[in-house]
């Protein structure tokens, strides 16, 4: 069992600031609100880290009504506030919380390497700055924005489908919160239910936005129980939810709720491209930001020597350091030991026997007295465990283990043959294609089951503000409608009938 290494800053309390446990309040338009119903949340060692105020459905309704009742803030002011808020999020002390304190809290509670939160600081700043450009880029060229509409126009106009967006936020990665900033740019009021794994990111965003001058009624933070989360989506005009396949299936037919599920992102390498030259891109796609994003690759298709690639990738990922989340060099996710053990047991029962590739120099069979599942995690000795990277070698992409997504660096490697088509991929959020076959690349771009295609040494998780993530959010939140204004509108030439 590896010893827990020294951390860079030393650990004091679970909340990571040396002070009292963190009190995450409801953020209403009128300000912070401490609910009479509260629950304790824990850090990655399983120790209590703070309390969340829980909003029962009645409070959710009250807050949403307040948001709806508040006057509209002009678009120019909102966009300016978004840009300023991004800077504040990245650099300012907000309600006593420095960027460092935020990153540390986020890491200790989510179990993610602190570098993920650090990178998020900058990503929020860039997203805020780019909000106005993103807005313009997502609008259909044939439609005008509402505030550019004049009484005498006859035109398509780009309008919101509702006023309030309810977000059931995930806790896998802080950058997922970038998505709803786009909704604010469009003029939505956004009510976020934070995950117990990461209440800090949306709280800091709400603080930054209000500090930057966004009208308080545009944002709310509504922690609530799992049982009552649905009330937020029901009461809002539209909902943005994150979850597994069950959640996605549940909302598949909904026009009101957009469900974002597992990404199942992939890398495809055809024969004419030597995979050894691109191992960095492959490993980065799998393991960047601890492999927890939907944009991280969880499957690799390789035409030439897939087993060699699996072995090389296992060796590469097997050398990643096993560190607690607040260590500056941490790169792997940390979970409470019990949870890690449960996950490891599942892995042992499923892929453990069939295809797990052990890195060179390790034994596939542990000492007889130890639990064989223990090779999937590393006990840090403080109640938490690092989830070790895992590479699985499969005979075919038809294998049922192909397309699995797990909350740590995980990749299933399967052989690719030219007779397979993109339909063999299954649903894919982001695909990196390393291939000289232009028609194959084109076919991937055209495939409705592949949402984003990166060609060459562009890792699956690469992104930039303004580019669609899983489609553009505006495609869900906005619509075009006709405005024919003034007495002259009907007199002009129109289509027959």
């Amino acid at each position: 069992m590896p010893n827990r290494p020294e951390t860079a800053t030393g650990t004091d309390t679970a909340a990571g600031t040396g002070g009292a446990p963190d009190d995450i309040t409801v953020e209403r338009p009128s300000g912070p609100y401490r609910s009479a119903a509260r629950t304790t949340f824990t850090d990655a060692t399983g120790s209590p880290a703070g309390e969340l105020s829980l909003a029962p459905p009645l409070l959710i309704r009250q807050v949403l009504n307040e948001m709806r009742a508040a006057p509209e803030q002009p678009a120019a002011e909102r966009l300016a506030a978004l840009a300023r808020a991004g800077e504040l999020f990245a650099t300012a002390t907000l309600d006593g919380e420095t960027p460092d304190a935020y990153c540390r809290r986020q890491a200790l509670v989510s179990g993610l390497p602190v570098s993920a939160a650090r990178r998020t600081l900058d990503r929020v700043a860039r997203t805020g700055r780019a909000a106005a450009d993103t807005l313009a880029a997502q609008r259909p060229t044939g439609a005008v924005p509402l505030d550019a509409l004049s009484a005498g126009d006859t035109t398509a106009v780009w309008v919101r489908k509702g006023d309030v967006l309810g977000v059931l936020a995930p806790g896998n990665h802080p950058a997922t919160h970038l998505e709803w900033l786009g909704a604010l740019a469009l003029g939505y009021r956004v009510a976020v239910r934070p995950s117990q794994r990461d209440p800090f990111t949306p709280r800091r965003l709400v603080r930054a936005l209000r500090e930057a001058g966004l009208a308080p009624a545009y944002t709310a933070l509504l922690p609530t129980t799992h049982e009552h989360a649905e009330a937020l989506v029901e009461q809002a005009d539209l909902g943005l939810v994150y979850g597994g396949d069950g959640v996605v299936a549940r909302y598949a037919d909904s026009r009101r709720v957009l469900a974002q599920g597992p990404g199942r992102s992939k890398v495809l390498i055809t024969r004419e491209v030597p995979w050894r030259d691109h191992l960095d891109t492959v490993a980065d796609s799998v393991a960047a930001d601890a492999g927890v994003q939907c944009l991280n690759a969880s499957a690799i298709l390789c035409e030439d020597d897939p087993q060699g690639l699996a072995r090389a990738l296992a060796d590469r990922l097997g050398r990643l350091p096993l560190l607690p989340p607040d260590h500056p060099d941490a790169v792997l996710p940390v979970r409470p030991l019990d949870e890690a053990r449960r996950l490891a047991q599942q892995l042992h029962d499923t892929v453990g026997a069939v295809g797990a590739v052990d890195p060179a120099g390790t034994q596939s069979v542990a000492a007889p007295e130890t639990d064989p599942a223990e090779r999937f995690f590393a006990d840090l000795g403080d109640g938490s465990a690092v989830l070790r990277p895992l590479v699985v070698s499969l005979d075919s992409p038809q294998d049922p283990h192909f397309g699995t997504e797990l909350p740590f660096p995980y990749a299933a490697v399967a052989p690719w043959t030219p007779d397979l088509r993109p339909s063999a991929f299954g649903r894919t959020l982001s695909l990196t294609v390393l291939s000289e076959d232009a028609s194959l690349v084109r076919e991937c771009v055209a495939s409705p089951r592949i949402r984003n295609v990166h060609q060459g040494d562009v890792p699956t998780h690469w992104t930039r503000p303004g580019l669609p993530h899983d489609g553009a959010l505006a495609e869900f939140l906005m619509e075009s409608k006709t405005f024919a204004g003034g007495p002259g509108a009907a007199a002009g030439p129109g289509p027959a009938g």
Partner: protein
Amino acid sequence: MRDVDAVLGTPWHELPSADAVVAAAMEWHFNPATGSRFWVERAASLPFDPRKDITTLADLNRFPDVSAEWRDVPVEDLLPAGLRGLGRLPSVWESGGTTGAPKRIVDLGQWERNTCWWSEVLDEHGFPSGDGNLLFLGPSGPHVVAEALRGLARLRGAVFFPVDLDPRWVRRCLQDGQSDIARHYVDHLLDQAEWVLTSQNISLLYATPPLLEAIAERPRLAGLVRDKVRGIMWGSTSIDPETLRLLSTEVFPDAAVSGLYGNTMMGAAPQRPAVPDDTEPCVFQSFHPYVHLSLLDPDDLSREVAYGERGRVCMRQLSPEVLLPHVLERDTAMRVAPVPGFGGDGVADVQPFSDGGKKIIEGVY
């Protein structure tokens, strides 16, 4: 026999001691001349003699919990012989059936006595009396609560306007995953409430927390309640503390809001007025000394938890018509020390008990 009745039936203003009530109840319910067939026959199989060995409240723990048998025992077997031939037939009330088939009790006045006391507690809360009528959103049928509220309306000079509700049907809808039907049913109830509130002089409202929340969702109906109702009684399902705070401070800020804990088997345990140093917003008192609530350690049911701790609710009823010496309720609650003016411990923050098994569906009632 009449001496026994004098103790068991004494008005609550001249309270006998709890142990005196225990002794009188043992004598009354286990004497073949006055007791019910159910208890007199049961006495033979008990490993103790209730009339000799049970003298204190704590001794009642020696009894088994027989309440489940009251799902199918004929009601004639439950009526004490000493209450036969009074020229009155007992009323029979049924529980809501949250935890299975309903249980039944006989009643020859205990609920009425309980309600008279409750009405006095409502005076202390500042509820209107002789000034406006009572709208009741709850079940009639085999359930006792409508009858109790009808009595309460009479005591407070209020005309009783009931809207009927079938709680078993709602629960069945929810159990079967038909939450849309349950919601439709709630709309139907609220439509009826709106008719009454629009046209009548209503100052008192009884409703369950889910119905109060549903009222809050309908702006016109919530406005009618805000404009007219001065006293809101809630009960029959639990409520989380935040929802209660919102209902009383934001949704209906000008009405007195007071809770009621209780059920068919234990009677009404109203919320007592707050006293200085209360840490709990809502403390319920049972109809002492005829009904006792004990908070037992879930891991060791022979031990009562300390004040301020949470325990499983154990109810004991010692009325002339009902002996229930030891009933483990479906709930847990916090034990609160007695305060002047009220006998026995208070209970606060009542929540459905969960042992990790099937979730209890409270429904809208």
